């Protein structure tokens, strides 16, 4: 079979459907990556327009252009859109598009999940934009502090859009994170050790794990606040044992890692692009990996620096101040390793390099002002002024937007298969970068002169006029520059001439394919033995196209790829991916109805759509099963491997492990919140604690025992025992709730209800999983092909029993002890 026939055969197997239908049914990472990037860019434009409105309003004193009610919606939505609907999804898009290509594989671990996440993002984002256009957008600031954002300060529907819309969008972050983690760990080119991964993959891995552990506190906070708003559960109302500080902790427990979740992917792009621009290799690969990991870890210990003015005890301040300055160290390691890389090589001033220089100039200043505000006494002065606004834009635009534009120009030949042609990009650069510094350098000073952030206008005569007019004019220059970048990209994509395959002379596998990328990425998978396979073997692309790697034979007519051992990169089994399907979009639409029902308080819609989601999920899962075994099949280069349906740790098991990591963090945050209220909130103890009797205790323990030991008895017996155990566990919620009938009485009762609700939800999920396992066996699936599914179900039911025991202890102990 020659290269062209192989290309045709593989394209038939992997391509999305043609025409409009293809948009809604595609599960291909190249398409979805592009769609993610496109939609995120649209949100950047919307957020940018809002920024222009802000600067227009603040250009002169006593401006009457916008009143406070509009202004408050505009700055809140600007922050919210930029953080949640632009930055994070842009990273997801880039990773979705690039990772499989850089890792030398054919798609992400869970193609349909990619599509599901994408549509959740689109629908959730659309909700937010609707609120903006209808003039009922959230208006309490992007960190939504209650009680201002709760029913006391915001009785309208505005806050609900934020809490529900953003939670909906976060589904896409979590699913992308699960996917990225499993892909990096298990789906690479055969032979590629962890230590040989492209550096971007390391950054993506760290970022993804941070999303899994960083977003759950926010999701929990949003759910609790929405429960307070909709049903009066008083988590943040101090009179009934709640505490507004709880929200601040949960929010910043997310919010600080979020900053690094935004920065690390950009750092990944820099570490990839910079050595290529300097025509050398990255200095200190190991050091950079280590510092990315330690940034990830450290960033979870810093959240309190956003709360230095809330009356945190003195020792706490000292600790978090120290931790916050410490985080500058791994950042410095990366910066100096990059500069060392420049020294090592012979840097060339291509457009991506120019943007990287803008990154250095801007981000270093942002980092230095960051260290300043980590010093508590200074923060007491700068907090909530324009100094902070300036600082955060130096970090976010300097540390994310500029590197992403560098990435855009670097990978543009890859996206389009064309050479960058016009020189518009240089003009744009010289508008954006000086415009940026003109805007925000000046605003530092306004902050020091006492200009508070979030004021909708200011009085003349405070020395602020000149600064603000300079900032506003510069910001319009910057905006014109950004518009030029977009025009440049579009023009280049449409009219530029076809370019060569590897225009920059890079060594990573993303350039080892024809561009624009074919739907199957690689006609056969490379065997990788070094960090820069393309430098090692410049003929690699040709040999891959000729089918000399793994899985070059398309005759089985299905989407096949390989899964590897995590550390060594030895191939372990073959994975067959599902094909195009509208199911992900349908399921996310139904998920959207669920959130919509909550939003407009049409509570009848909620259970109906929940059942709809379950139905979709069952169809989805059922389609992945296989009733008979195939045994080991040849995968090329003399190797034979069994398919994933016959192994004990299929991709779904790995996905579950990381989803449970996020889920466990969610539960951990709930325990943290409960402990926080218990110890810190005024107005504790509640009027009464639960008095746990012996009966519920026995029920829980019996249920837990059944689930744990029973589920190890094989598929059918295991399913039976697990089902019985789960029903017992679920049953204990009745006596518990009968003792705490009114969740609005006190934050304690409200928490009890949340524990019970969380436990019941997990009983239901595990129950459904075991039912699927039992149904597969009963409908004739072999024991071998249900093994993986059974282990997934066991993972979830074990988690459920752990949750049940911990919840029982948490809500029962105070009553026992007092």
């Amino acid at each position: 079979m020659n290269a062209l026939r192989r290309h045709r055969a593989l394209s038939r197997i992997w391509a999305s459907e043609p025409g409009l239908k293809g948009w809604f049914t595609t599960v291909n990472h190249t398409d979805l990556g592009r769609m993610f990037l496109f939609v995120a860019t649209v949100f950047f434009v919307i957020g940018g327009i809002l920024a222009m409105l802000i600067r227009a309003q603040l250009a002169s004193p006593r401006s009457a252009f916008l009143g406070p009610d509009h202004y408050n919606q505009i700055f809140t939505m600007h922050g919210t859109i930029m953080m949640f609907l632009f930055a994070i999804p842009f990273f997801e898009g880039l990773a979705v598009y690039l990772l499989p290509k850089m890792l030398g594989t054919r798609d992400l671990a869970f193609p349909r999940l990619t599509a599901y996440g994408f549509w959740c993002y689109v629908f959730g984002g659309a909700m937010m934009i609707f609120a903006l256009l209808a003039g009922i957008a959230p208006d309490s600031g992007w960190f939504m502090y209650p009680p201002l954002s709760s029913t006391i300060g915001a009785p309208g529907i505005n806050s609900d859009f934020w809490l529900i819309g953003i939670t909906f969008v976060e589904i896409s972050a979590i699913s992308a994170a699960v996917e990225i983690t499993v892909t990096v760990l298990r789906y690479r080119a055969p032979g590629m050790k962890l230590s040989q991964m492209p550096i971007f993959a390391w950054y993506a891995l760290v970022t993804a794990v941070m999303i899994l552990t960083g977003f759950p506190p926010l999701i929990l906070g949003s759910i609790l606040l929405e429960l307070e708003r909709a049903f009066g559960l008083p988590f943040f109302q101090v009179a009934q044992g709640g505490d507004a500080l709880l929200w601040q902790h949960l929010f910043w427990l997310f919010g600080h890692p979020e900053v690094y979740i935004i920065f690390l992917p950009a750092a990944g792009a820099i570490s990839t692009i910079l050595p290529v621009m300097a025509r050398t290799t990255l200095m200190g690969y190991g050091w950079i990996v280590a510092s990315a990991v330690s940034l990830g870890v450290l960033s979870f210990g810093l959240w309190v620096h956003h709360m230095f003015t809330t009356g945190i005890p003195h020792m706490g301040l000292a600790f978090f101040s120290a931790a916050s300055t410490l985080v500058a160290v791994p950042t410095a390691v990366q910066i100096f390793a990059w500069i060392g890389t420049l020294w090592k090589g012979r840097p060339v001033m291509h457009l991506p390099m120019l943007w990287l220089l803008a990154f250095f100039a801007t981000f270093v200043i942002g980092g230095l002002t960051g260290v300043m505000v980590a010093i508590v006494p200074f923060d007491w002065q700068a907090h909530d002024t324009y100094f902070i606004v300036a600082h955060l834009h130096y970090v976010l635009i300097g540390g994310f937007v500029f590197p992403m534009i560098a990435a855009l120009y670097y990978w543009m030949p890859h996206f389009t298969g064309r050479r960058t042609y016009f020189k518009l990009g240089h003009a744009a650069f010289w508008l954006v970068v000086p415009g940026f510094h003109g805007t925000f350098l000046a605003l530092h000073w306004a902050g020091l002169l006492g200009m508070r952030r979030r004021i909708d206008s200011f009085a003349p005569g405070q020395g602020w006029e000149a600064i603000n007019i300079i900032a506003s004019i510069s910001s319009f220059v910057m905006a014109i520059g950004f518009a030029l970048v977009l025009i440049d990209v579009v023009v280049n994509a449409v009219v530029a001439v076809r370019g060569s395959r590897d225009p920059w002379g890079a060594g990573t596998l993303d350039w080892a394919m024809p561009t624009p990328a074919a739907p199957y990425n690689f006609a056969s998978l490379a065997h990788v033995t070094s960090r820069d396979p393309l430098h090692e073997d410049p003929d690699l692309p040709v040999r891959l196209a000729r089918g000399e790697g793994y899985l070059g034979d398309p005759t089985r007519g299905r989407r096949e790829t390989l899964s590897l051992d995590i550390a060594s990169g030895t191939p372990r089994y073959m994975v067959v991916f599902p094909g195009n399907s509208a199911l992900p979009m349908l399921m996310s639409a139904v998920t959207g109805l669920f959130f919509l029902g909550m939003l407009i308080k049409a509570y009848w819609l909620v259970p109906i759509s929940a059942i709809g989601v379950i139905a979709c999920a069952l169809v989805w899962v059922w389609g992945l099963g296989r009733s008979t075994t195939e045994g080991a099949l040849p995968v090329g280069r003399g190797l034979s491997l069994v398919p994933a349906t016959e192994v004990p740790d299929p991709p779904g098991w790995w996905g579950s492990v990381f989803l449970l990591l996020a889920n466990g963090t969610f539960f951990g945050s709930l325990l943290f919140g409960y402990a926080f209220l218990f110890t810190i909130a005024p107005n504790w103890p509640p009027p009464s604690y639960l008095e746990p009797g012996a009966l519920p205790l026995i029920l829980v323990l019996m249920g837990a025992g059944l689930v744990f030991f029973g589920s190890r008895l094989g598929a059918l017996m295991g399913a039976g025992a697990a089902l019985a155990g789960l029903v017992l566990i679920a049953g204990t919620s009745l006596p518990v709730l009968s003792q705490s009938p009114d969740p609005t009485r006190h934050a304690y009762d409200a928490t009890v209800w949340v524990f019970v609700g969380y436990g019941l939800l997990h009983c239901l999920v595990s129950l459904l999983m075991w039912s699927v396992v039992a149904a597969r066996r009963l409908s004739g699936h072999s024991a071998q092909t249900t093994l993986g599914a059974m282990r997934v179900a066991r993972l979830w039911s074990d988690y459920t029993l752990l949750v049940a025991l911990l919840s029982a202890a948490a809500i029962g102990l105070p009553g026992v002890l007092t």
Partner: protein
Amino acid sequence: MHPAGPAAAVIAQLWWVLLAGATAIFLFVAALIALAWRRPPGETQERRFVVWLGLVFPMTVLAALLAYGLVVGERLLPRATPDLVRVAAEARQWDWRFGYEDAPGRETENVLHIPAGRPVDVAITSVDVVHGFWVPRLAGKLDAMPGHVNVLRLEADAPGRYEGLGSEFNGAGYRDHRFTVIAHDEAGWQSFLQGETP
């Protein structure tokens, strides 16, 4: 920044130190980058960049800075002193009410009276949403949290009027959520306590 009290003065001095240090570091990094183009390519020591510049250099700078910050922080703490005055601030949308330990039952609205030249502890709380208490020329800011009381130490060197601001976004009336601090001389303070001059 026109500090008019010891706390604000210390913070202002801190700022000038920070600015000088940051500028120096920025210029240093910029020079390093520019040099990459100016020098012939050749052996570059990984150790020098990663270990010395990446690890040792920031650690030393940060340790020094942190120590300085903590010392400054100590000086701002509300410590017990004999001539301490205690007042209370209660925030609401969009209003401030102040009470005085030395004049029980006395309440002023949107005007806080203090004696000049004596340390004052303000006990800050809120009755509705989160607010911030900030007198830029006298001290840093501290939030008013519903259900909690936070104590801020401030001191005015000289008698006079100082502008106070709500410094945590609190909804539609945020811009004009202000108050005035009047620092009296000793005689004025006594007569205020007696209920004479408002």
